[in-house]
């Protein structure tokens, strides 16, 4: 008896959703990573219907699409996840004939190291990790070393992400964030453990409110989140540490399970249009990979020091690369040790 009721109900639900005849595209993207009118514009122009879902981390996204039956057509992985996704057979190749707007990308994103021929991915927007601080803090932090400062005890947070936190320690030691050298990694771990007693917590975007209220004076934060926070709170500032920092280019990919690759291609091409890319970057407060978009930015945005810093600051940034499998295990173990310390 129970089964029949369930089946009737379930088929009822299924019937409800098939009343719309427009082609459907399911897009899975980072939160706050698009302008509010981009999707409606696409829907109007191409007569499609878009289901837009959001996630907060690559891992969350991967866990959902790993099985090949998630239902999503497109996702937006960070560059260093593309290789693992490819290795697990999750991606559909990009047809450049359907993507004329690829030329709008900046030169350095035309041949990114994770996908030199852009066979699988189309760069979207870039984030970087740095230090956000409350201007009450005087003098303001300038380097990773300042996050190890004892006077900030209990008022510091680091990102709850192994790559970021270990990366910060590596940078403090003057090393590369992508190193697989065991000895270097162990040194970074020692640094992170040294820092732990000073930390208030390991927090991601949610630290924003505590920064504003003064509970936290300096926080390890991504520039996008920091800019969003700074928009509403002038007492916050952001700095790219002197020793260097990690850069995370995000890109769009089409999943192999997608039944609507042509529509997905249309969406990617749409996102690469300078006016759309500019609107997205402006609304989401991010760094764009689209040179056409840059040209049409309003001057205050184009010169925003947090999102579009000077050349010498950009030079200090290091792109995050795929961690090689052996080093992954070591890093994983290190993270557990740091967290349990």
């Amino acid at each position, binding site marked *: 008896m129970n089964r029949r009721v369930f089946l009737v109900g379930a088929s009822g639900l299924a019937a409800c959703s098939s009343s719309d005849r427009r082609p459907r595209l399911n897009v899975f993207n980072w939160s706050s990573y698009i302008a509010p009118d981009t999707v409606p514009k696409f829907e109007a122009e191409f007569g499609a219907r878009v289901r837009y879902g959001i996630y907060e981390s690559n891992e969350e996204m991967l866990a959902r699409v790993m099985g090949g*039956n998630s239902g999503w057509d497109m996702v937006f992985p960070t560059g260093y996840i593309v290789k693992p996704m490819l290795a697990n057979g999750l991606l559909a190749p990009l047809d450049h004939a359907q993507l004329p707007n690829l030329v709008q990308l900046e030169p350095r994103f035309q041949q990114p190291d994770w996908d030199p021929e852009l066979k699988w991915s189309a760069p979207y927007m870039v984030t970087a990790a740095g230090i956000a601080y409350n201007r009450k803090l005087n003098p303001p932090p300038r380097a990773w070393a300042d996050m190890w400062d004892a006077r900030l005890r209990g008022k510091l947070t680091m990102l709850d992400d192994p790559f970021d936190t270990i990366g910060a320690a590596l940078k403090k030691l003057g090393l590369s964030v992508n190193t697989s050298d065991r000895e270097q990694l162990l040194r970074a771990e020692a640094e992170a453990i040294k820092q732990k007693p000073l930390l208030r917590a390991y927090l991601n975007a*949610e630290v924003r*409110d505590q920064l504003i*209220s003064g509970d936290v004076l300096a926080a390890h934060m991504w520039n996008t989140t920091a800019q969003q926070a700074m928009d509403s709170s002038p007492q916050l500032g952001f700095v790219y540490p002197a020793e260097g920092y990690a850069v995370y280019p995000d890109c769009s990919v089409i999943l192999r399970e997608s039944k609507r690759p042509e529509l997905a291609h249309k969406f990617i091409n749409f996102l690469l249009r300078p006016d759309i890319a500019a609107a997205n970057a402006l609304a989401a407060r991010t760094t764009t990979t689209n040179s056409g978009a840059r040209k049409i930015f309003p001057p205050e945005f184009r010169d925003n020091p947090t999102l579009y810093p000077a050349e010498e600051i950009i030079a200090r940034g290091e792109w995050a690369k795929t961690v090689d499998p052996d080093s992954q295990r070591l890093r994983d173990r290190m993270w557990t040790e740091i967290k349990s310390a």
Partner: protein
Amino acid sequence: MKRSGRPLAIYALAAYLFLHLPLLILAAFSFNESRFTVWQGFSFRWYTAAWHDSQLMEATGNSLIIAVFATVLSTIIGTLCAYGLWKRRSPVLSGSLYLSLVTPEIVTGVSLLAFYQWIFRFLQVQLGMHTVILAHVSFSIAYVVIVVMARLRTVDGSLEEAALDLGANEWQAFRYVTLPAVLPAVVAAALLAFTVSFDDYVITSMVAGVDSETLPMVIYAIARRGVNPVVNAISALLVLGFGSLILISERLRTT
């Protein structure tokens, strides 16, 4: 008995206050004009924002549908199971129910995800409402069994025997003798199952599909980015809605 009534009542009041304090805070700040935790005036803006947020509304609807289906199924299946086990034990079934309780949520989530992926090779089953409902039923049954079983242990088995002696068949013995005796526990179990289902984040987030986003998932996404009074507003609405339902049903019951 009555002598210990007063202190107990005072304690209960304090306990309820403890339980509801966060809710009251949430509700208070849902009327805050500012999005931050400094009071800046009374406003309904977050409620209008929530009402217009179609994603939030849809997720709430999904959560309700899933919870209702899952509760009905798991309560029925679980109650029958508890009764069957009470009559005669089945170590394998009990052991498996134990195990399903003991499993951490993340593991249940991953195992079901892996299961659905495996099935996907044979049937075109995509993740969706049905996968979530089934997942919820699978982890709720043990709760129902435990609650109903704890109550069954206090029921006198000879009452059923007496009914059988008087000419009732097994089904009637169950339906008219034992079931009424355990009904409060069944209701409690259903409440528990509904709560567990409506509130679940971990397992649901792993097996939900494109169209089956639930309220906890949406709230998690919003709250991860910091304080957002829209979440407060929807929570206050939910409590108001459910609270009214309960009060009304109480009224109906006692008239």
